[in-house]
């Protein structure tokens, strides 16, 4: 036995240290920060199916989290090797992969590329054939039978495109409309609406609804990129610059918001009052209305434009505690006729849910650490997305 002392010592040190490290790691993970909701007022059912995709930052370390009424979970409590192979699957796509495993193979997990209704799930993406021809790939899944069909349509004159991106898919009456941005080699940007006839499997129309010139103008789309269902309008803004150069800060000389109506293919301008022009970057398109939120000391003023009536209505006022920290942006999301807001307050984060029709508060609460009621001051919580999982 004495002869083997070297091997025995090395083995013992390895086993003792590594096992202590993993046992301790397993024990301490139970004391990790875990968040939950604490209701202050309103209807608790509002948070029943809510999942907040967030990231918790302490020091220079980020921890991705999902927070729901049952507490918080770490979506990355999976193999590191998995992370090396592929990006994590967004929460909303986990269900699609579970239900339509075969159909979802090889697809980009970006809601912008999808359309869904009761019967079908449609996916579209651009692909380049022989480095010359740009095609639109369209995959249609019949949710009832689980059968899928695929076809491709060729778009015209794409040799000068450096990159194409699908921003939204709209499907109605046998037509598939794809809002796509093409980035050209000369730094120009074009916003296209491609109309594909589903039955004939051919491209019916390709119209450029906006175009930007390098250093002179830019385009930004305001449709909810997480929405898979039909949106009747595309909301976008074109900014024009005063001779933007690399060294000087860009000076915007005009900003114009446009709405493309998918039902009649018409584009209309939206008149925005001067006092709201500076807030245009936070425009939100939701339920036939364009909203422009303006933050105030005690809450939020939500200005609303009715697209059908082509007029601005009385703004909604929501009162909730606002941020106590200038570095953190207030999180705002409009989903299902409701306003969701998460923001920093003096002792943590508040969660507010309001009704977009009545302007009334539906739920008010806080996001608290389960283990420590009062969180350390030097942490921050960033909300990326709020999901309603039914």
């Amino acid at each position, binding site marked *: 036995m004495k002869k083997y002392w*070297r091997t025995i010592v090395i083995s013992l*040190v*390895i086993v003792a240290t590594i096992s202590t490290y993993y046992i301790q*790691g397993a024990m301490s993970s139970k004391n990790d920060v875990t968040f939950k909701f604490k209701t202050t007022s309103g209807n608790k059912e509002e948070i029943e199916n809510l999942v907040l995709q967030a990231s918790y930052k302490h*020091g220079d*370390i980020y921890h991705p989290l999902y927070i729901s009424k049952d507490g918080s979970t770490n979506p990355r409590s999976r193999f*590191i090797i998995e992370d090396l192979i592929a990006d994590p699957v967004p929460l909303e796509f986990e269900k699609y992969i579970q239900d339509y*495993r075969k159909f979802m*193979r090889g697809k980009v997990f970006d809601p912008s590329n999808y359309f869904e209704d009761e019967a079908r799930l449609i996916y579209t993406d651009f692909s380049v054939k022989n480095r010359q021809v740009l095609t639109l790939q369209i995959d249609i899944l019949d949710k009832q039978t689980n059968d899928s069909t695929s076809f491709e349509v060729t778009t015209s004159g794409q040799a000068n495109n450096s990159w194409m991106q699908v921003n939204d898919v709209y499907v109605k009456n046998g037509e598939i409309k794809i809002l796509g941005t093409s980035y050209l080699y000369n730094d120009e940007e074009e916003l296209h609406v491609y109309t594909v006839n589903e039955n004939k499997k051919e491209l019916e129309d390709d119209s450029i609804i906006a175009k930007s010139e390098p250093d002179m103008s830019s385009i930004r789309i305001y449709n909810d990129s997480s929405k898979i269902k039909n949106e009747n309008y595309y909301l976008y803004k074109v900014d024009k610059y005063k001779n933007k150069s690399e060294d000087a800060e860009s000076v915007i000389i005009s900003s114009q918001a446009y709405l493309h109506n998918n039902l009649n293919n018409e584009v209309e301008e939206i008149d925005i009052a001067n006092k709201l022009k500076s807030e245009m970057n936070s425009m939100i398109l939701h339920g036939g209305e364009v909203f422009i939120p303006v933050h105030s000391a005690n809450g939020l003023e939500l200005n609303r434009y009715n697209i059908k009536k082509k007029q601005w209505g009385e703004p909604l006022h929501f009162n909730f505690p606002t941020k106590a920290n200038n570095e953190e942006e207030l999180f705002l999301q409009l989903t299902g006729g409701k306003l969701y807001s998460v923001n920093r307050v003096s002792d943590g984060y508040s969660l507010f849910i309001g009704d977009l029709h009545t302007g009334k508060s539906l739920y008010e609460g806080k996001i608290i650490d389960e283990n420590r009621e009062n969180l350390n001051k030097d942490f921050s919580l960033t909300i990326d997305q709020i999901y309603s999982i039914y």
Partner: protein
Amino acid sequence: MKNYLKLVNFEISRFFKLYLILIGLTIVCQLIGVIRVSKGYMDLAEKVMDKNQLSVSQFIEQYGTFSFQRFVYSEWFLMSIYICIAMLIIYVFLIWYRDWLGKNSFIYRLLMLPTERITIYFAKLTAIMLLLLGLITLQLLLVLIEIQIVNSIVPADFRTYSYGISNIDIFVLMYPNTFTEFVLIYGIGLIFVAVLFTAILFERSYRLKGIFFAIVYGVLSLGVFFAPLLLNGFYPRYFYPLEIILMGMVTSFIVLGSTIWIANHLLKHKIMV
């Protein structure tokens, strides 16, 4: 089994002195490094704050807080790691070639032992893995001491909050979150060493021609091992991550099984004593 353990101990004993030197070098290098890097930061802080009349928060705004990563990415830390890796890679070859090329061609005595020849292969493989895991363990213990040293030199106000080893990206692969992953990652390491061993045996069996066989064999093994990842590269997102991991496990077993089978065959029939 007894022969195997004896051989493992024999291999460890042969490298032990050099191993102790390596351990000593790592400890000295890293301890001097951690003191110098953290003291360097504090000296800078004192100088800058004194010269420009800055408060702690103003200094931090301009120069950032001291995070343990500053030391981890310093030459003191990285050099010691590189030296250990280089030594182990050299020893993967040395563990075989010194038996052949040493003074008394020791391999002849080893191969004449009344035991299966593959036992020698397993013993050498185990020795390399033990030496590697030993260094991994040393690093784990050293980091804990180093964090204490940093904490004693750099006041809390100047430090970035750190959750420990699992949050320093360089350590994520060395000490993965779960023990299962630890076994998986070092299992992959074991496969690579085994493939190298078999390639060495090819060279020893067929000499000059053997180098060619060894290269072909090595490339084939790597090809099979990385096949699931290549497949994922050709058909992006077609396979889900868990499927690729499962395929990877299957190819790993194929590579490991075949490498041991080939090594056994070469040792038994091709290496003549």
